[in-house]
């Protein structure tokens, strides 16, 4: 076996490298996934992360009803408030989470990273959430202001804390991306919330389940309890904004842990199959001799099967080691990037076991058929050594396109060469399909994210900033919403300002309910573009209720269906017909034009506008204008939309690195497979090629013919590869779609040609060692060998 491996070391190396890469990807993804899951789980355990959260409604009744459900272990009530806070003169929206000062709560506690927990002796002491602390450089002893009902409240930082609820600091499911300059979280004494405007405070009930409880059943029952008692927002742990966002990310690792290694191991299996088939063919005479001499068939079978196992282990063992080491780095990188306070990095035996099983399966299955064939050879026939190196016959291409028959004979040889060994040609084509799928699945993510970010922040969200006004009765002035909007429009540097109603809403249908925001623009708004599903861009003058596209399935509604729109901040419930669904990459909102909203609320209702969308003048200093707007007394918070776009795009850096890696690995995989198939192809035809050299065919011409055959096979694989890759990419992306992100494949026009060119380049590169072998044929020796 050693001599055989040495004689075909290039091809064996190609197989081993492909298995190695597959196992590296597997171990890296799977172990990182397991580590990250364990890290999050540890945070959840330490903090007592709630299994279910209910906001608003009759929290007393909700608590009592929920507590009585079997499987509920702990129930806790708390309050949260969204208020302006000021840090060093900078105003931002703050989420104040009330905590008991006596000690950590039994549900949704915090991990104190610096300083001390809240103290009964210091009623104005607060903990700053980790991201906010890092962004503003806040340390114990620093002071900031919270907007109280009677004016600003000064609070002092006792420490820095991390919370399972804000590992990803998202204000809501609809606002997954939030600039740290615009949103921050404080953990405050419960008593401090007594001093803020009651309308800004929401009561919540938090539930923890007993170990082994039926989570799905409890989620459903608590949802019903929440609905029955008027809750405005109820969600299970899986739907908690931070957890949902991060889970999507790390679930991606889990999916990649299966998908990508499968591609590599599939390619390795094909390459091994080709290699072993060729080996058996070339050793037929020896096999026949051994069988005739008394060797058992199972011995022959085991001998050839062992090649696959040797290649599998040779690639799998170092692959797993490298992958596990890389997983540790990846885990640290990721937890640092996302600021997960606890890193759990462990050794997972299942990674090694499953990885080895994958490799052994690939190695065994690929060698099964050639090993079986070898063991079933008839000794006499095998010893005669008469093996054809291809059948005669016109190719399918020539039959389909008769003009091809007029080609020079050398090119007919190239075309017919594809059909010489159909299994091998099919393997090459399949290899190209696998490579194209791998590359397109990654590149597709990049293109899609890039296109969708552009759509979200240029075509849909057209504002430069979103200004929230303080709730009625809390602002020091009694200006009307129209006057507030006018005051914003008058700030130097503001080109345009429109009043908008941004209202927490629960949309309810016969099939379910969904908590989101209702956004109400003026007809013909310049601040928002509406992309009707299936229709492309629509006029901004939408006339009726528009819902985010995911709600079609989530609520089981269609156009013209009636839904209830509950607006708890206004104490109103509207009944509206759905006029359409909008395709928006980020978030799932409801839209109703202001005239329709006003009419639905009734003549006695006040102006629901509580925010303004702003476009800055060209050349204006956005930071200065933002601060000037935030300084207005009626302004609660200013969200810089462009900063959000920049934040979202900053995460693209990771994507580029990932795509680059996948393109390279896909290329390596294709290269290894094509090299193996071409090598087998050439070794089968050495005598023929040597004869052509002896007859005076030049090296370059011969290289051109060999390259032509290779390229033809490549092209035959690229076209279906791009098609399969396109649909695989679309399916892969849509598996990440949810109400948080709507990810439909969007490829830039040049992506498919670029991928095709990349694969052609790989095919040409794979030629190099093969052409060297052709160049080095010992013509004098080879022409005298029997073709085999």
């Amino acid at each position: 076996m050693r001599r055989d491996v040495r004689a075909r070391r290039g091809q064996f190396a190609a197989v081993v490298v492909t298995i190695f890469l597959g196992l590296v990807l597997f171990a890296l993804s799977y172990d990182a996934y397991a580590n990250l899951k364990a890290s999050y789980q540890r945070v959840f355990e330490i903090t007592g992360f709630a299994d279910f959260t209910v906001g608003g409604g009759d929290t007393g009744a909700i608590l009592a009803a929920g507590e009585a459900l079997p499987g509920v272990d702990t129930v806790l009530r708390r309050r949260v408030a969204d208020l302006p806070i000021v840090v060093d003169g900078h105003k931002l929206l703050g989420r104040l989470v009330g905590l008991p000062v006596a000690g950590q709560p039994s549900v949704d506690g915090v991990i104190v990273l610096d300083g001390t927990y809240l103290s009964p002796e210091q009623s104005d002491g607060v903990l700053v959430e980790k991201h906010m602390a890092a962004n503003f450089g806040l340390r114990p002893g620093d002071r900031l202001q919270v907007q109280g009902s009677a004016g600003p409240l000064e609070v002092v930082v006792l420490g820095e804390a991390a919370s399972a609820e804000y590992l990803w600091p998202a204000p809501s499911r609809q606002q997954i991306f939030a600039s740290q300059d615009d949103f921050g979280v404080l953990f405050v004494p419960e008593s401090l919330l007594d001093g803020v405007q009651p309308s800004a405070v929401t009561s919540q009930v938090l539930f923890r389940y007993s170990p082994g409880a039926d989570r799905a059943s409890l989620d459903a029952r608590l949802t019903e309890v929440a609905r029955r008692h008027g809750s405005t927002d109820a969600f299970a742990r899986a739907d908690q904004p931070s957890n949902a966002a991060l889970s999507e990310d790390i679930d991606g690792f889990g999916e990649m842990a299966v998908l990508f290694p499968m591609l590599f191991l599939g390619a390795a299996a094909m390459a091994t199959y080709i290699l072993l088939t060729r080996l058996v063919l070339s050793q037929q005479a020896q096999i026949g001799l051994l069988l005739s001499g008394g060797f058992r068939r199972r011995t022959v079978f085991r001998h050839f099967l062992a090649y696959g196992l040797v290649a599998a282990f040779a690639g799998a063992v170092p692959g797993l080691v490298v992958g596990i080491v890389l997983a540790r780095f990846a885990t640290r990188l990721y937890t640092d990037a996302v600021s997960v306070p606890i890193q759990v990095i462990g050794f997972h035996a299942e990674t090694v076991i499953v990885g080895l099983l994958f490799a052994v399966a690939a190695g065994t299955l690929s060698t099964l058929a050639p090993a079986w064939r070898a063991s079933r050879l008839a000794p006499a026939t095998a010893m005669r050594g008469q093996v054809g190196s291809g059948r005669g016959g016109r190719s399918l291409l020539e039959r389909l396109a008769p003009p091809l028959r007029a080609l020079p004979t050398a090119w007919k040889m190239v075309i017919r060469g594809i059909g010489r060994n159909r299994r091998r040609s099919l393997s090459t084509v399949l290899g190209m399909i696998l490579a194209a799928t791998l590359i397109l699945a990654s590149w597709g993510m990049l293109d899609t994210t890039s296109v969708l970010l552009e759509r979200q922040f240029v075509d849909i969200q057209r504002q430069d900033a979103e200004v929230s006004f303080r709730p009625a009765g809390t602002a020091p002035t009694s200006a009307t919403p129209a006057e507030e909007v006018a005051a914003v429009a008058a700030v130097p540097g503001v080109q345009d300002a429109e009043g908008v109603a941004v209202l927490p809403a629960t949309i309810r249908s016969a099939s379910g309910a969904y908590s989101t925001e209702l956004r109400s623009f003026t007809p013909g708004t310049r601040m928002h573009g509406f992309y009707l599903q299936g229709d492309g861009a629509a006029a901004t003058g939408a006339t009726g209720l528009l819902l985010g596209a995911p709600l079609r399935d989530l609520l089981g509604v269609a156009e013209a269906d009636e839904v209830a729109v509950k607006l708890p901040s206004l104490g109103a419930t509207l009944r509206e017909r759905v006029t359409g669904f909008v395709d928006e990459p980020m978030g799932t909102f409801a839209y109703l034009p202001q005239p329709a909203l006003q009419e639905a609320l009734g003549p006695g209702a006040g102006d629901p506008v509580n925010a303004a969308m702003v476009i800055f003048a060209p050349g204006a200093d956005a930071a200065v204008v933002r601060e000037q707007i935030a300084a207005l007394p009626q302004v609660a918070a200013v969200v810089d939309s462009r900063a959000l776009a920049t934040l979202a795009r900053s995460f693209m850096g990771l994507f580029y690195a990932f795509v680059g890696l996948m393109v390279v690995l896909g290329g390596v995989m294709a290269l290894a497979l094509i090299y193996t198939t071409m090598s087998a192809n050439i070794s089968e035809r050495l005598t023929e090629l040597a004869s052509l050299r002896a007859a005076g065919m030049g090296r370059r011409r011969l290289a051109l013919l060999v390259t032509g055959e290779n390229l033809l096979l490549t092209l035959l694989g690229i076209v279906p590869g791009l098609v399969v890759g396109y649909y695989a990419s679309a399916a892969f992306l849509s598996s990440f779609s949810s109400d948080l992100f709507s990810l439909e494949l969007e490829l830039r026009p040049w992506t498919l040609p670029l991928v095709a060119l990349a694969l052609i380049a790989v095919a040409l590169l794979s030629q190099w060692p093969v052409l060297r072998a052709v160049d080095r044929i010992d013509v004098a020796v080879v022409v005298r060998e029997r073709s085999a």
Partner: protein
Amino acid sequence: MHEGDLVVLDGAAKTYGSGELAVHALRPTALTIPAGQLVVLLGPSGSGKTTFLDLIGGIERPTAGRLVVDGRDLVTLDREELTCYRRDDVGFVFQFFNLVPTLTALENVELMAELVGRGPESRQALEAVGLGDRLDHFPGALSGGQQQRVAIARALVKQPRLLLCDEPTGSLDLETGRQVLGLLRSAARAERSVIVVTHNSAIAEVADRVIRLRSGEVVDDRRNETSLPAAEVQW
């Protein structure tokens, strides 16, 4: 050396390896082969006859001496020039035919003919070897003798100065072998020499000249006063 000499070996030799491990496949040899001869190189396995053929055919280089074919010293030619030499001046016929299995008989001949711009002569070349009715047959559908005749047509379509044959009847039965020998006999004409390597001494009776080799040396070089017709050769 005479003016009509097609091949001139002037001390040409081939040695593999060096020092104690050196193998003298062909010791320094001096002889000439004029055009128009059918020459048989005879000798046991390892005698150097194949090496002799390879040197003349330009698929091996002498490690000593000179080897002049049609006025050109092959030792001075580079790789590309040797390729051109083989393309224009040499035709090879091998024991195992070495046809391209995915091309028909006609296409196998055309493949070589197109190299020298003689594509249209391919049909004629096959007819000349008696395969005018097998043009569209693939090698798998031809007998051994028919395949060897295709190989001969393929070699001759280029109108080479030299036709070099290595055990051309080695895979054939007596009757088919005679047919092939007959073609080779007729291929040797005024402007062309045919050199046949064989270990079968019966074939030597067809030749104009027999050169015997043993252990890399020419041990005998004599003309046949009367050569036997190919149809009468017995082995």
